[in-house]
């Protein structure tokens, strides 16, 4: 074999071997594609394809009239990518960046250096620098008009509460993930939330979204809308009056509920202080608490409704009966002293409720077996949740009869040794107003989807009949008398509007002891003939007076008056009341009353009057108090901005002028003195016939005025007008 042949043959041996490589490559490619392909491709999807949600819009919340209470606002996040490829180069040119920052600064009112710092302090390779988180549509459009590459504008939905704090405790608020935290937002979170859609995206190895793949895999379903029973007007009235009341009486907080007794629909529910659900974090946590459903209180005298219903239905009390209460207004029951607010003397059953005698109420209750009384309390909804559609309701506490002590029944009869929520009391009075049929309170009338198709509609839920219709019809005038002039709830009166209700004054328990701090409340409804509105008002620790009749009842009155102004039916019934012939009376003492209070008092006395001045308090009256008035006589009042300005020369800081108290009943006199910052010492009971110091003298605030009472004086000034 010559050299050449040898070289060639060796060459072809090598060629043969090397040719095996492309064959091997081919086999390998086929193997990877066809035998491992499926798994590898699945692996690719796993690493590079991701699913991101397309957010669903949260449903709106409307009031009963279709007014929008909660909706979504769109705002924009502005991010900036300084490293975006730009005209073949990389990065946004400096002059464009400056233009962007300057424009942004003028639009938002922030400084140029604020944004400059944000860009400079970002990590060096960062391609996503957030400059603003919540830009309005207007600013967004301006920025977009600049048309600078590298500007990223992202939409985000933000929950918006149209009227700020209005109905905040009902609506609740949402967290950053727009999940409801409390209120309706939380209770109906699933309905409101909707379902997010799904979009497929590709991510790069740094987990950045790279591109969207095709059309959305699943479209979002927007949340359902809630149509609530809340009436924004009534809600506003309630909040307005509650705020005024809390501020006037220097209370810790106030709670109010207004509901429709026929259906259980909550027309308004408020607490003051309140908060703005648009910015929940900027308020105290305490302000966000819905006291109406989550605070347990000892109700006090409003609970006498239970005693009254049970006693009348059980026939243990007769309307002719006279209850004699001791001269000092105290009885001792199993070594515990039970007091009336004033010694009340002999009382009919109606007067027991009207004047709120604890002694007599306890006596009536003790005529019943604990089990019977318990059953009535239970039937009237105490000790169980109302199951209103809100989060955070407590059930209160109603002990079982076998857990009771000997004094439980007499004390429970006037609202102690029991824990209730404000809503439970409102519900019980609603059942009373509805002639015994108790309805479940509720807030959402209807749930609709985006197209207006009804998803859920509320049917009023009858819980039970709490007592016979006849029992409640018998009690109606009794509770109406509470609002009469001689009743504890006289300040709840509205001319021409028949109101029934009950005041409540309860000592607060702090650390297991009764203190001298009170809760004043008023539960009532109107019009009595055909009750449309039930309202419960509670003030916690009012500093002016503990009495519910003095603190909560006027709030109720104002609310009733204003609702009457809204409600055509009620207004019509009020205007058709016949004018009664005026009676000859003596002029009442009006000095110190506010314009509204004076007007109300005079109207009820059917005394004609004229008022000089627009606001403030009555500083002078002609004729003086106690003068006999004949039909047609007029009282002339002069108002002054501050209580004592008319006699400003004699005003002393920290002192109060003693008013004429004679002729008033004890409770009213006490309230008046409390309003002036004076303490009261009472000797005897009934109507004040002597006082020390005398009218017109000045006394340092905090000092004591002594009042001597004479029981059951029939010639008292106010009683003279009793209808």
């Amino acid at each position, binding site marked *: 074999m010559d*050299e*050449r042949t*040898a*070289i*060639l043959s*060796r*060459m*072809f*041996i*090598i*060629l043969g071997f*090397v*040719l095996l*490589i*492309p064959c*091997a*490559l*081919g086999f*390998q*490619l*086929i193997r*990877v*594609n066809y035998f*491992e*392909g499926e*798994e*590898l*491709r699945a*692996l*690719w999807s*796993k*690493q*590079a394809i991701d699913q991101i949600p397309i957010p669903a819009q949260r449903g709106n919340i409307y009031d009963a009239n279709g007014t929008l209470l909660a909706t979504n606002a769109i705002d924009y996040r502005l991010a900036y990518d300084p490293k975006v*490829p730009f005209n*073949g*180069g*990389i990065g946004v040119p400096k002059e464009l960046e400056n233009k962007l920052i300057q424009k942004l600064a003028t639009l938002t009112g922030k400084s140029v250096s604020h944004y400059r710092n944000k860009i400079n302090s970002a990590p060096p390779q960062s391609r996503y620098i957030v400059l603003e988180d919540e830009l309005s549509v207007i600013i967004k459009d301006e920025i977009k008009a600049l048309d600078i590459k590298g500007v990223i504008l992202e939409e985000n939905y933000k929950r918006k509460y149209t009227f700020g704090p209005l109905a905040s405790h009902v609506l609740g608020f949402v967290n950053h993930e727009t999940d409801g935290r409390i209120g309706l937002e939380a209770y109906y979170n699933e309905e409101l939330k909707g379902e997010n859609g799904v979009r497929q995206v*590709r991510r*790069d*190895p740094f987990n950045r979204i*790279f591109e969207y793949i095709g059309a959305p895999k699943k479209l979002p379903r927007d949340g359902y809308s809630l149509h609530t029973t809340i009436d924004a007007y009534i809600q506003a009235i309630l909040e307005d009056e509650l705020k005024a009341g809390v501020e006037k009486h220097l209370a810790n907080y106030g709670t109010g509920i207004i509901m429709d007794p026929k259906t259980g629909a909550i027309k308004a529910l408020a607490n003051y202080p309140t908060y703005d659900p648009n910015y929940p974090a900027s308020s105290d946590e305490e302000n966000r608490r819905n006291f109406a459903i989550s605070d347990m209180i000892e109700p006090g005298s409003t609970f006498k409704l239970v005693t009254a219903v049970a006693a009348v239905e059980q026939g243990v009390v007769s309307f002719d009966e006279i209850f004699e209460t001791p001269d000092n207004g105290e009885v001792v029951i199993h070594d515990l002293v039970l007091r009336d607010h004033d010694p009340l003397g002999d009382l009919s059953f109606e007067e027991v409720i009207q004047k709120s005698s604890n002694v007599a109420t306890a006596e009536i209750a003790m005529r019943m077996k604990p089990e019977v009384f318990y059953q009535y309390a239970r039937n009237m909804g105490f000790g169980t949740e109302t199951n209103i559609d809100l989060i955070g309701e407590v059930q209160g506490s109603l002990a079982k009869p076998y857990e009771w002590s000997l004094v439980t029944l007499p004390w429970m009869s006037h609202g102690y040794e029991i824990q209730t929520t404000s809503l439970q009391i409102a519900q019980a009075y609603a059942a009373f107003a509805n002639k015994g049929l108790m309805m479940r309170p509720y807030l959402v009338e209807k749930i609709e989807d985006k197209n207006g198709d009804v998803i859920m509609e509320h049917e009023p839920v009858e819980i039970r009949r709490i007592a016979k219709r006849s029992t409640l019809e018998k009690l109606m005038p009794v509770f109406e008398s509470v609002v009469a002039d001689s009743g504890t709830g006289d300040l709840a009166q509205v001319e021409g509007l028949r109101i029934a209700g009950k005041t409540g004054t309860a000592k607060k328990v702090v650390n297991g002891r009764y203190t001298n701090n009170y809760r004043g409340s008023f539960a009532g409804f109107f019009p009595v003939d055909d009750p449309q509105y039930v309202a419960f008002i509670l003030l916690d620790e009012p500093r002016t007076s503990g009495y519910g009749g003095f603190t909560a009842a006027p709030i109720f009155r104002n609310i009733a008056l204003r609702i009457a102004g809204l409600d055509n039916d009620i207004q019509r019934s009020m205007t058709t009341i016949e004018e009664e012939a005026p009676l000859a009376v003596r002029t009442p003492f009006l000095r110190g009353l506010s314009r509204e209070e004076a007007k109300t008092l005079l109207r009820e006395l059917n005394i004609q009057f004229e008022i000089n001045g627009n606001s403030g308090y009555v500083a002078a009256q002609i004729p003086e108090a106690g003068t006999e008035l004949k039909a047609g006589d007029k009282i002339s009042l002069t108002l002054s901005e501050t209580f004592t300005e008319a006699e400003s020369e004699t005003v002393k800081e920290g002192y109060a002028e003693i008013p004429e108290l004679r002729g008033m009943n004890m409770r009213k006199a006490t309230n008046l003195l409390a309003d002036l910052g004076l303490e009261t010492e009472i000797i005897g009971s009934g109507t004040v016939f002597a006082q020390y110091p005398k009218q017109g003298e000045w006394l340092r605030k905090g000092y004591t005025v002594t009042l001597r009472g004479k029981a059951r004086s029939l010639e008292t000034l106010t009683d003279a007008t009793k209808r």
Partner: protein
Amino acid sequence: MIYTSPHSNLSNVIGTTAEDIDTPKQGSDRYLLMAVVILMTFGLLAVYSSIAFFAETKSTTAGQLILSHLIKLGIAFFVMLLVSKINYHAIAKLSRIGMVVSLFLLVAVLAFGTEQFGAKRWLNVGGFSFQPSMVASVALLIHISVLLNEKQEYIKDFQKAFLPIMFWVVLTCGLIGIEDFSSAGILMAICLLVMFVGRISVIQIGSLIAIGILGGILLLSQSTNRQDRIEQYITQIKDIPSEQIIQGSGYQAQQAHIAIAKGELFGVGIGKSSQRDFLPAPYNDFIFAIIAEEYGLFGAMGLVLMYTLILIRGVVFVARNAEDHLGSLLAVACTMMIVLYGFVNAGVASGILPVTGLPMPFVSYGGTSMVFAGIMVGILLNISKHNRNRRTLYYG
């Protein structure tokens, strides 16, 4: 079609004597040229598709990088045409000087080289950086072809033939192997193939391979990095891990597999690769995977066939028909150098070989390999002009 024809005035251009300028009567092998152009086109598209992220890290744009790639392609193509004009006998005369210069460069890179990806492989001369290992590889292959040709009389002699040749081989591969084991390995393999073709005793080569394997094991034991690669290679061959994404060692091989699987038969389309974001150096070491993804099984096999075409043209036509032994040996060396680099790169990307960082000639992004691949094809083209059969036809 680019066609190189005899040109008598070229001597002025390149400054060689008239005899050095090749003036045969027929042109060079047009199939080789065609294969090179197709490879370059594939490479251009795949590099453009995969280089965007690299551009980002270098604070430049894909456009600028692809421009530099195009310039390198142009230079390589020009160098190829230039070399094809130079008679390979003239190049052979300079082989010893080339060898010595290369060895100097190799020593220089160890002393002054710049580091990239954890290895000192680049030498920067006047703002122009290149890989001396590439220069040395080409010089060595030319030189041993020359030596083998010279020693044909006593080629079976261990002392007179085997040892002098092995001296250069071991010296060069050893210097390269310090920093770049896989390049040294493949160069050694090509040298042994050429020596085999050049009629060196099978026993001598066989013994050397045995020693080489022992030496390889010794080298392996010194680098955990290499051990890792081998270990990973073994698991990868046994079973392509497809249950879950591997992090760490084995990640590259798996991502390359995913790329190939994703391409299926016809690929995802030009510039639509997504695996380029998951593979390291997709424009270089794993360019074959990107091509498989974008152009599918057909595209990848087409690429492999281009190298196979070069192999067959280079061996069956150019080497077999070369006018002398030197031509045959040089043709085999150049062919093997180009084709084996291409096959190894494809083998790595498709998972039949352990992960190494070898470029794919004419396809990968990278100047030095491109220019030297151009030189090799240039030599091949020149040899193809000196076709003994044609000469017989023309002159006989």
